[in-house]
């Protein structure tokens, strides 16, 4: 049996469980509409600014750097699995790979792209 069939079953179950919990709230419990109650929370006063503010570009930068380093991690996993068979050759190959990325990392650091203020 393909080992991923249990994964799919568990996935379906997990989604169902989440939906049941999420749905329980909608079916049980009282329902009473009150304009004030349904306002988004703002410490008791009427809403001052909307919930859809423009967000800082820093989050975008974080996300894109995350993708790039994530890909690097995946490559490193591949190498780690074949480490014993590749020997020093593998170490040198990955050292070159990492070196190029360290240059990129230092550039990011020097440009101050990781500063949050």
């Amino acid at each position: 049996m393909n080992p991923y069939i249990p994964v799919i079953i568990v996935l379906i179950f997990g989604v169902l469980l989440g939906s049941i919990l999420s749905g329980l709230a909608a079916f049980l419990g009282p329902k009473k509409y009150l304009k004030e109650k349904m306002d988004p929370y703002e410490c008791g006063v009427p809403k001052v600014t909307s919930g859809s503010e423009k967000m800082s570009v820093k989050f975008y930068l974080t996300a894109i750097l995350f993708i790039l380093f994530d890909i690097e991690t995946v490559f490193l996993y591949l190498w780690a699995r074949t480490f014993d068979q590749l020997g020093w050759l593998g170490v040198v190959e990955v050292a070159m790979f990492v070196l190029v990325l360290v240059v990129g990392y230092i550039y990011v650091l020097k440009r101050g792209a990781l500063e949050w203020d």
Partner: protein
Amino acid sequence: MEALNLMPEILFYIISGMVLVSSVMVVASRNPITSAIFLVVDLFFVAALYASLGADFTAAVQVLVYAGAIVVLFVFVIMLLNLKPEALRGFRFTVGEALVLLITLTGFVIIATELAHAPPDIASPGNLGAAAIELAGGNTFVVGMRMFTAFLWPFEIASVLILLAIVACVMVAKKDKKSGLKGHIQSSGGN
């Protein structure tokens, strides 16, 4: 027991169906966040397709990198720009989009014809069947060995590519060194 033997095929058609449905939903939904979430579902089912073919590593990476990283960026960008459905126009082809569609279709046709005329050992599982891979040390191991021997140069070039991407994204996000990050994207009503 006949049903069990047919299971991989049934599974294949179910998963492919899900991939197609979610792909259509990505393009058809009006809300960009809906599109992004359907893209996650889509990529997840593509990963399931890989897994059902015995390509564990590709499946895991598909979820890790595409569903878990790249679409996160999409979601961030959608939140960042706060795109509202009404701000977006519906289905209307521009010249550029038509061109993209044309190129995609051409690529698809080329790949399909290449696959149809490929030597049998690529088109059919044959010597790369699940049992053979299992015997050779598992999917991850086989991919790793190929990557670090036969495909060494593409691997090293990938690092340069990632470096370029890092530099480019920092250049775009951060115009000059002194003023710090250009805090917010300027647009009407932005803070």
